[in-house]
């Protein structure tokens, strides 16, 4: 089994605060959709932030293609091809849709193809063309999420990490977002998804990772994780906490 990204016994937290992650591990295979599930406050978002370099790795390691990402800044990790779309979507509310897309290509060393790449994205996502001169902050939640996901495509990433793309969206729109995610996966982009709704997340993924209290409880093929009795238990507990 060739691994694209490997997280081993990771410890991380915010500033000088307590360790939020303590013993998280994860293996990611190229081209697959991976889903991290777990109750509120389990550390799912924290794990993605640690992988992308926003948080310092205190112990353990994150290896991308066998190379440690320890100590790298977010912009350096991005340039290796790992994109992160956080829970808050990370748009620039008072910049236009087009300007947001252009910022998506900020890290590209070669800017010559940038405008064309943006044109291509607008072609694939007509709503972004329609709204190109509108401020991103004035769009609906689904449109904003579409922009955030589409924007990652500009640098042709290897891994895209999506933190709860379904958050606050109507079921029909959520379905659309999963559609975009699957399309990205079908183009060979490896996906690391965090999802509150375990059932929906796992059904749309190949691999499942269960995180609780900053630790990986277990991981495995999504259908197996879905069938595991421990999931039912954890989720009843998780719902109560929410």
């Amino acid at each position: 089994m060739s691994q694209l990204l490997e997280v081993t016994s990771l410890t991380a937290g915010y500033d000088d605060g307590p360790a939020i992650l303590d013993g998280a591990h994860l293996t990611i295979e190229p081209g697959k959709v991976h889903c991290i599930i777990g109750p509120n406050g389990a550390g799912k978002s924290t794990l993605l932030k640690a992988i992308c370099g926003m948080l310092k790795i205190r112990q353990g390691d994150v290896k991308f293609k066998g190379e440690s990402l320890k100590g790298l800044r977010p912009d350096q990790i991005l340039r290796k091809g790992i994109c992160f779309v956080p829970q808050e979507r990370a748009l620039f509310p008072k910049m236009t849709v087009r300007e947001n897309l252009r910022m998506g290509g900020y890290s590209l060393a070669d800017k010559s193809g940038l405008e064309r790449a943006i044109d291509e994205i607008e072609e694939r996502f007509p709503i972004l063309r329609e709204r190109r001169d509108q401020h991103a902050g004035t769009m609906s939640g689904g449109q904003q999420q579409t922009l955030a996901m589409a924007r990652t495509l500009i640098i042709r990433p290897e891994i895209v990490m999506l933190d709860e793309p379904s958050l606050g969206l109507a079921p029909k729109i959520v379905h659309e977002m999963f559609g975009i995610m699957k399309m990205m996966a079908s183009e060979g982009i490896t996906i690391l998804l965090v999802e509150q709704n375990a059932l929906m997340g796992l059904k749309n993924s190949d691999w499942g990772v269960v995180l609780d209290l900053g630790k990986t409880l277990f991981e495995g093929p999504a259908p197996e994780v879905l069938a595991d009795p421990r999931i039912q238990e954890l989720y009843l507990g998780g719902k109560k906490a929410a």
Partner: protein
Amino acid sequence: MEQIVQTLILGIALGGVFALMGSGLSLVFGVMRIVNLAHPSLIIAGAYVTYWGFKLWGIDPLVMLPIAAIILAAIGVILYKLVFEKEAKSAKYSEMTVLLTFATAMIVEGALGGMFTNTQRVTSPDYATDAIFFGNVFIPTGQLYAGLASLVIIGALALFLKHSRFGNAIRATTQNRDAAELLGVNVNFVGIMSFAIGIGLAGAAGSLVSFVFSFFPAKHWEWIAVLMSLVVLGGMGSILGTVLASFMLSIVAAFVGAYFGSTWSSMTFFLALFLILLVRPQGLFGEKPELA
């Protein structure tokens, strides 16, 4: 009628200068969340640079302007490295910077006083005392030049922020620092450069101020409330808002001065600051302030 037009013209000309004085303050706040109470004292430093360039070598203040801007920008970088960079990680960053910038203002004032005494100065190129007449209405040439130079600089700043790659990175960092970093922007470098540009704008404003107002080291205390009122009315961090607020308040102040006497004219700004904070703390273009 003539009286009204005259007052309006004087208000607009002054508004242009205030707009430049406020825009650097606004930029620094937008990107760095630093309320730079030392901004007006650095404007005065720029005024001194210009004054001595003119006095010693006869260099026109408008030619001194880019020189003052560059010198002050360099001072800005040094100041940032010495004073603010270490604190950037502190949880009490915003509160700290208020104290640090206050202290910086006192130090700048002290240094200027020590070097140049507290004598009132004014740079006096020929146009500073000239006026252009249209019938009975006049525009002081100095204020006209200063207002125009201001608008050119602010226009250039706006073009830079809107259309250059680095300008976009500055705007992006202002709007969402984490997101900018995630897209590959080196936000620390953006911070330093914005600080340099902001203080450079203070230097440029100082050149204009040097022939529009008379100045001395402690003069900055008068301006801090004026500039705060512009930045707050404009919506903290919005440069466009600051520029519009400058024109609005300067015009109002000109009319208040014309009809109630000049002491009341500066009261306009203080009263405006008070009212805005009470009624619409987010200003014209700002977001609603966080309640936390």
